[in-house]
């Protein structure tokens, strides 16, 4: 207990004595963490975008032309009870025509010569996330298309495939760069603390000769490492928070539609930043101090 106190005292006074050096290290660790953090934020935002695109994905079920509204109602009830269906929207022939005209824009003059509305009514159905895989979805739609009253089922198979591919690419990119960056950060912390440690070699030699145990020698270093790491982490949280707010505000100004995608910075960052800094520095310091041999 007394030893812990002495260690803490030593750690604090060492930290203070080498304050400029330690500030430097804290900044280095902060840089490392900030790079990692920006990456995390970026990847959260990308994931949120992908999720949103998945949410917007829907299949369209075109109904037979002559179908009555009672039959339509029955079909609606049937589909909505399916366990894979998330939500359903009914689109009448008229609505469909309007949408088509809207979509064609100036090209809609093609429709001028059409007297009778040639479009069928339809359901736009959103499916559960689990089933949004081409193979599964094809099975499902094959089933649906056998239901009497259903004429044809359409869904953007290519879109879905490219969505899935995009999300896979994102995931693997995140994994690759994530691991690379995380190890870089650990390495920056390790290297920094190791370099700091070299300065203290003589001191450690002397401590050993004076009869200090391994614990006694190691503890202040670990504590100092954690102090520096925590400081670096806190600094990183602060600067990330501030710059993310700034950047995201500026981005939203330029492109209001981004609002839907941008995730808000979790408050937890003020816990995770310092914690990550402390843990990394602890690990770094631990290896930096290394095996103390007598």
């Amino acid at each position, binding site marked *: 207990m007394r030893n812990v106190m002495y260690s803490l005292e030593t750690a604090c006074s060492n930290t203070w004595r080498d304050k400029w050096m330690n500030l430097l290290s804290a900044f280095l660790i902060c840089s490392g963490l900030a790079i990692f953090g920006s990456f995390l934020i970026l990847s959260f935002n990308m994931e949120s975008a992908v999720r949103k695109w998945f949410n917007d994905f829907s299949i369209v079920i075109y109904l037979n032309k002559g179908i009555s509204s009672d039959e339509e109602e029955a079909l609606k009830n049937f589909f909505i009870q399916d366990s894979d269906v998330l939500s359903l929207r009914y689109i009448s022939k008229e609505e469909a025509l309007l949408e088509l005209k809207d979509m064609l824009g100036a090209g809609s003059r093609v429709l001028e010569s059409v007297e009778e509305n040639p479009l069928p009514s339809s359901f736009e159905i959103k499916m559960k996330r689990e089933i949004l895989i081409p193979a599964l979805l094809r099975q499902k739609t094959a089933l649906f298309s056998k239901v009497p009253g259903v004429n044809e089922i359409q869904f953007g198979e290519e879109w879905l495939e490219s969505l899935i591919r995009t999300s896979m690419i994102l995931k693997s990119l995140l994994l690759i760069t994530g691991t690379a960056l995380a190890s870089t950060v650990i390495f920056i912390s390790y290297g920094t603390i190791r370099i700091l440690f070299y300065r203290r070699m003589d001191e450690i030699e002397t401590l050993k000769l*004076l*009869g200090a145990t391994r614990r006694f020698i190691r503890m202040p270093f670990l504590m100092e490492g954690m102090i520096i790491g925590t400081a670096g982490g806190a600094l990183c949280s602060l600067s990330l928070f501030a710059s993310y707010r700034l950047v995201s505000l500026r981005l939203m100004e330029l492109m209001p539609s981004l609002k839907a995608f941008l995730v808000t910075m979790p408050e937890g960052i003020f816990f995770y930043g310092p914690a990550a800094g402390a843990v990394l520095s602890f690990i770094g310091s631990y290896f930096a101090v290394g095996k103390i041999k007598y």
Partner: protein
Amino acid sequence: MIRFTKVSKYFGKEPVVTDIDLHIDKGELAYITGPSGAGKTTLLKLIYMAERPEKGEISVSKWDLRKIRQRRIPYLRRDIGIVFQDFKLLFNKTVFENIALAQKIRGVKPDSLRENVDRILTDVGLAHKSGSFPEHLSGGEQQKIAIARAMVSKPLILLADEPTGNLDHASAKTILSLFKEFNARGTTILIATHNSALFTDTGRKVIYLKDGKIEKETTG
């Protein structure tokens, strides 16, 4: 208290101390002397295990140095106070902190720590330098701090390597009388020095080292 049996130490292929037989009794105050490079420092290092012998046996107090386990070495060293030839003061700590360190390592309580450090500083006559950093001290003052650090914890054994090399005659006498006082209270003391003035007419054991061998053992 300290016993060497046929001890040899090599650096590379060169022998530095060879075939040393040595016996220092509990409570003794003895001198090791000899020309520069004779192996005095190396002999002391063997005692506190900063070097390990290639041959022979060494026992120090209750410890058999051949059998001691790595993790027990700090405890051996706590039985020994060492005045290093190059002082080994920590330059980023004040005089007080340097001496306090030896106490902290031994887990001494904060209040007795402060008392002990202040007392030994007064004994060596440097109480007024308590807050200074070693680099702002004169050579002699640094040496006195190194001596104070070795003595503050009242060790069983005191090893002093050239403890008066940077001291004027008066300071050297003060330090020597401190050593004698400690010795009278039971501390075994071994002093390595080339300064024959220290041991002539003391009636203490003097071991003459030359080229790593014990040349003679007399009474000074």
